[in-house]
């Protein structure tokens, strides 16, 4: 579950608030969209909802943010979300579960399941550095899925994907919500937003 109550946030060194008096709740099993123009604060809201701002980014937060369980966030630029430490897509997807210190067999199970769910099993042996942007986005999302988060936040996940890739993401989002995850989606793509149970305007 993600719950934001009267949240305002400004980045370090900034006088202006990037978002103000924003409230939002995403329950388990719910898929909620965020629609807004560029610079409306969608990405900032995602960072706050993921618990990264101000914990990692610094800055100032007002209001309350509640996150139940493990949360994960997917950004729009897939290239900077690769670990840069892995030789193969398989290792890249396994990177998060390895960081959690899970048993090796559990890591393999989660990795195989995430690759299958994203339909990218054929990429497992390839170098993550040699993929297209769309393929990389699917690999990064598979890496997040392997973490088995309770809440998933996606910031324009299909902006660099072809229609087939976007269809995969759409199927994954619906499947995640069906399996009881809280899913928050910031997007311009109306087709993807139409899948959401409700859409919040920024």
């Amino acid at each position, binding site marked *: 579950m993600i719950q934001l109550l009267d949240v305002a946030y400004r980045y370090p060194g900034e006088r202006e608030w990037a978002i103000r008096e924003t409230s939002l709740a995403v329950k388990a099993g719910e898929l909620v969209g965020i629609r807004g123009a560029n610079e409306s604060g969608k990405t900032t809201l995602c960072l706050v909802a993921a618990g990264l701002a101000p914990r990692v980014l610094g800055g100032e937060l007002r209001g309350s943010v509640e996150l139940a369980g493990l949360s994960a966030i997917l950004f729009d630029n897939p290239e900077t979300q690769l670990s840069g*430490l892995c030789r193969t897509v398989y*290792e890249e997807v396994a990177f998060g579960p*390895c*960081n959690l210190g899970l048993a090796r067999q559990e890591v393999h199970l989660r990795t195989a399941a995430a690759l299958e769910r994203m339909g990218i099993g054929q990429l497992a042996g390839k170098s993550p550095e040699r993929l297209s942007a769309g393929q990389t986005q699917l690999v990064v999302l598979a890496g*997040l899925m392997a973490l088995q988060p309770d809440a998933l936040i996606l910031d324009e996940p299909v902006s660099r994907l072809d229609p087939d890739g976007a269809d995969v993401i759409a199927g994954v989002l619906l499947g995640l919500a069906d399996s009881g995850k809280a899913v928050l989606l910031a997007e311009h793509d109306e087709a993807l937003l139409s899948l959401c149970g409700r859409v919040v305007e920024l």
Partner: protein
Amino acid sequence: MALPKGPAPLTALALALTAALIGALWGGWAALAISLAVVAAAIVLGRLKPMGLILLSLLPLALSSLLINALLPAGGAGASTAILALVRLAGATLPLSLLFLAVPADRLLADLEGHGLGRRPAFVLAASLGSVSRARGRAVHVIEAQRARGLDTEGSWWRRARGVLPLVSPLVLGSLAEVEERALALEVRAFNRSGPRTVLEPPVAAAWEGVLRWSLLAAAAAAVVLRFAGR
């Protein structure tokens, strides 16, 4: 070409560090022998071409050293001194160059992590090793973008040199922005979680490699003692 199965990454690191230390401290015939051995190993491992590029990168240094020592009166040390200095440099750098050419960084890091190196130092080391290729890739994108806006980066050396300046700012700023995004991505993927990290395929070292590592450590210590005791 598939690499022949070699020693565990940590053994390769111990070998490279010991050879580099001996090459740097002793110079002369020892450094020459080490350099030749490294070139021979590069041939066996199918890494001769990248090794050749590394040797080429030493060329400007070699030429300037020869110029200063052999031709300029103020240098005064002679061509033999310049050649000895270059041999010493080759002996010190080539073993480590071959190590990074032949051993995948992630395997080396997994081995180091398995022997107690924390994940943060491991990441810093890996990020440093990988930063060169990423910076090169980013530079290609920046050059293409600037060319599309009319920047001339082809032609004479002077023209190319003038074209470098407009590339620096987007390259540096882009790299800095990437650092922040990458830090967020790593945080999301539990990189900063405390506790041991699972290593998917722990490098396996043969029993003899443990003996070899200790022998190399002893050889390195002996090389240092003998070198300075001989002065």
